[in-house]
Structure formats: C-alpha cells, structure tokens
C-alpha cells in the first residue's frame, strides 16, 4: 500500500456504503437468528445517505470526510449499530485529522482508533461474538502485511485481500462463540451455533473493498 489519496478514500467509503445498502436484507436475516432482524435495515438508514449525498460531502481532508460520515451514521442509524459505527467513524476522523494523503501506517492508526472507539463505546472485548471478532484480526493481518517489506509492492492489493479473507474466516469462526454483548447475549447458550451478524458484515464489506481496490490498483 503506497500513500493513499482522497480518491482512494472515496473508493473505500463509496464501496463500503454501496455494499451495505446492497446487503440490507442479508444482514438483517443474519440478525434474525438470535437477534431482532434489524441490523441491515439500521445500517442502510445511514449508508444510503452516504451513497446518495456523497458528492456533497466536504472533502477538504480525510478527517472532515470521515467526520461527515460519522455524523450521518449517528443521525440516521439506530440500535447498537448507530453508536458503534458512528463512534468508529468519529474516532477515525480524529485520527486522520487534516491529512489529505495517508500512508499505510496512517491507515492502521486510523483503523486502530476506530476499534478503540468501538470497544470503549460498546464495552466489548475480543471473543464476545461481535463485529470486533472479524474487524480486529483483519486489521492485524493488514498491519502485518503492510509492515512486511514485500507486502506493499502491489499497491496493497494482496494485503487487502488477505485482510478480507481473514475477516471472512473470523466471521465464520464466531459460530461456536457464546454471545456476551448485544441483543444476542440475552439468548445465552442459544446464541451458539450461528455466526454473528456484525462480524459477517465486516467480512462482506472488506471483500467488496478488496475487489474494488484490485480493480483500480491491481
């Protein structure tokens, strides 16, 4: 991954938003197994605005852009997802600041800030069957690749693909976990045996981003 321009940030955000909107029903279905079936719809309420209004967002820096996304999410998304995803974007924004170009290290810093925000906001740790269980190992993998000298000679195409694959596998690995956070936790033992909706969504989103990235940079 070489330095990333705002253009690349646009690609990631637009791809992410579109993927969420396209997977509304799928994500909601995942949440109906031991949750309440609203996850996809809740996310859509925010990310469809990101899709439709993206051109109007202030792009003077990565920070302003991420902040705007964070505000849209906080203003439109309900349930756990609103505060969790909203906080992630607002913390990412703060970490990005007024940069307009990001290094690979910046990307990792930003993602770590988002993760810390999610953990503080929602109180979850790893292994409690939340989206963190896909997001954290994916960012770990991305970081490992980016610090590996040979890992970035392809504009990060393989690094991103690997992070996406890690997320997908990690999401699958939430199946045997006991949910300790969110609505699924109320079901106790009965949460065992189905994947976490949020973790699965992280995998799907990262796969989309990776594909879009490969198309542009591969």
């Amino acid at each position, binding site marked *: 991954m070489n330095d990333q321009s705002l253009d690349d940030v646009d690609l990631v955000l637009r791809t992410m938003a579109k993927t969420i909107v396209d997977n509304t029903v799928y994500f*909601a279905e995942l949440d*109906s197994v*031991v*949750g*309440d*079936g*609203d996850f996809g*719809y*809740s996310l859509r*309420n925010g990310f469809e605005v990101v899709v439709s209004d993206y051109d109007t967002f202030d792009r003077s820096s990565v920070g302003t852009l991420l902040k705007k996304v964070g505000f849209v999410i*906080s*203003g*439109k*998304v*309900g*349930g*756990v*997802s*609103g*505060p*969790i995803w*909203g*906080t992630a974007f607002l913390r990412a924004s703060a970490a990005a600041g007024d940069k307009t170009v990001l290094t690979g290290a910046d990307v990792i810093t930003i993602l770590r800030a988002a993760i810390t925000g999610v953990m503080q*906001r*929602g109180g979850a740790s790893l292994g409690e069957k939340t989206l963190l269980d896909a997001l954290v190992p994916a960012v770990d993998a991305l970081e490992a690749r980016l610090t590996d000298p040979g890992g970035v000679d392809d504009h990060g195409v393989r690094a991103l693909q690997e992070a996406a694959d890690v997320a997908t596998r990690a999401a699958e690995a939430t199946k045997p976990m006991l949910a*300790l*956070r*969110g*609505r*699924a*936790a*109320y*079901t*106790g033992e*009965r949460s065992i045996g189905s994947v976490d909706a949020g973790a699965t969504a992280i995998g799907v989103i990262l796969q989309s981003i990776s594909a879009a990235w490969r198309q542009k940079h591969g």
Partner: protein
Amino acid sequence: MKKFVNDPRQFVPEMLEGITLASDGRLKYEPKYNLIYRADMPQEGKVSIIQGSGSGHEPAHTMIVGKGMLDAACPGDVFAGPPVEFVYETSKLLNSPKGVLHIVNNYTGDRLAFEQGREMCEMDGMRVETLLVNDDVAVKDSTWTVGRRGVAGNFFVIKAVGAASERGADLDELVRIGNKVIANVRTLGIALSSCTPPVKGTFLFDIADDEMEVGIGIHGEPGRQRTKLVSATEIVDIMLAAVVPDLPFQRGDEVALMINGLGGTPIGELYVLYGIAHKKLEADGIRVFRSYVNEYCTSLEMAGASLTLLKVDEELKSLLLDPAEVSIRVF
C-alpha cells in the same frame, strides 16, 4: 405481509403523525427526530421525562406521551433504538431548569444512544439523569453480561415518575422513585407466534403450531426455552414460578398485577390469564392492589402475553392512582 402500511419505511413516521392528529392539539410531532412531545412542555417547574426506544412496542412508548406519563418520546425504527442525534435533539428541545430524565430500557442500542446523548447534553450544561429499566427475569443477570432487558415493567416506572413529576418532584426525587419501581418490578413473557416487522415483511422467527417460546424478548429474541404449548393455567404457573421467587414476592406483599398482551392475543385471553394469576397470588397471601390487563408493551402483532408484578408500598400505590392523559383510551 398482512399489514396496513404504505411504504414500510414510512411506517413509524405515519404512525407518529396519526398519534399527533388524534391528540387534538395536545401533542406535537417533529419529523426530523421522530419526536413526539407534549405541546405544553417544557415547563419551568417540571422535570422533562423522555424515552426513546425501538418502535413496534406500541402503545409503549409513543402512545403514552401525555400529562402524568412521558413528556416526549423519540422512537427509532421498528425494533431499533433511536439514533444518538434524536436523543440529543429531543433532550435539548425539552430542556427544563429542573432537568431532564431519561428512562432507558436496558438494551445495548438504547443505552449507547442515551449515554452518548447525555454526554452531549452535559457538554451543553444541561442536567440529565438516567433510569435503566431491566425487569425481564428471562435473562440471566450478572455483572459480566449486558444484564436484563427492560420490558412491560417500563410502564410502571413511567407511571410513577410521571405522576411524581406532575406533583412537582425534583430530578433526584424522580430518580429515587424510579429506582424503587425498578427494584420491585419483574416480568416474564411467553410468545405463541412470531411477528413481522414491516420493513422485513416476513416472520422474524418460525414457531410450530404446538409450541411456545418461554421468556421471549419483545423484539422476538429467543427466550429461556422453546416448549410445547400448554394450558392457560400451566402457563400462569410458569410465569409465576419465574417471577415470584425472583424478587422474591412474599406472603403479605401487595402488588400491581399486569397481564400485558404482546399484540396478537385478544384481550379475552388476557383476562383468562389474569383471573388465574389473581387467584393463585391471593391464595399465596399476595394481595393484588390493582389490575392492569391490556396491551402496554407489544411486539407488533405477536401472539403472546407477559406477566408483571410490582411490589407496591403506600408511596407507589398513591402514584399509580394519580390521573394520566395519554393517547390510548376507551372513551
């Protein structure tokens, strides 16, 4: 989907508009924040009481905005707590020198939105306190879990603090009273059928014709166990066996007894359950001070019912008997 809806995504706004139009000017509606509030609030001399939970539990909580109950409600979509922004804007609009009270059902989504909303309000110099309702005995409670859900017991919390706030109680007093209700209220729900969120358009879960879900969550979350459907008397036994020992409610106690319909069960059946429960409690020396048989906190059109007991003392009895003016009425 067997529903009266236009665009399913407009279900909540259209419902809120209907509530407001039916209120004869007593309520106002602010579409931007899904906000319904008393036209005569905020008032200098009264704490503003606010709730924002997911929709789909009507009459809770959007139809119990009115004198003696909530001063404002900012619901989210069906089964999704409101976005933080709704909480913040609603609190600001209702801000009173006596402060703002948030009554939050214990779901992570609701809690997070209200915690963050409160932080934002406090940064603006507002005084905000929070009550966390968690009456559902179906959920194992422990320090390392998210704790119990708030369900139909929510009604009693709102009724008591609503009445006290009309009498002029200050914010600390309301917190004390609210927490007393919360400490003394317990609920268990049983579902006979699923429900269909309008946007989803299909059943939330499947349940066989001869099954029931014991300890159902009001968002269709699975409960303690799925068992064979049994008789009304056996169902009341299951409910009381879960609720009574939990507090525990004891011989000599006086209680408010609520049989709450989950939406699809006709009220005739609720009264069947009520009669059985009333007799069993009285037989065990627990006196029913007041009956509540109706829909208070539903899961859309789910067939099912919950049983709530609230242990009352003289203070709570008096607050429960105070008048209230809300949308739902028979005459």
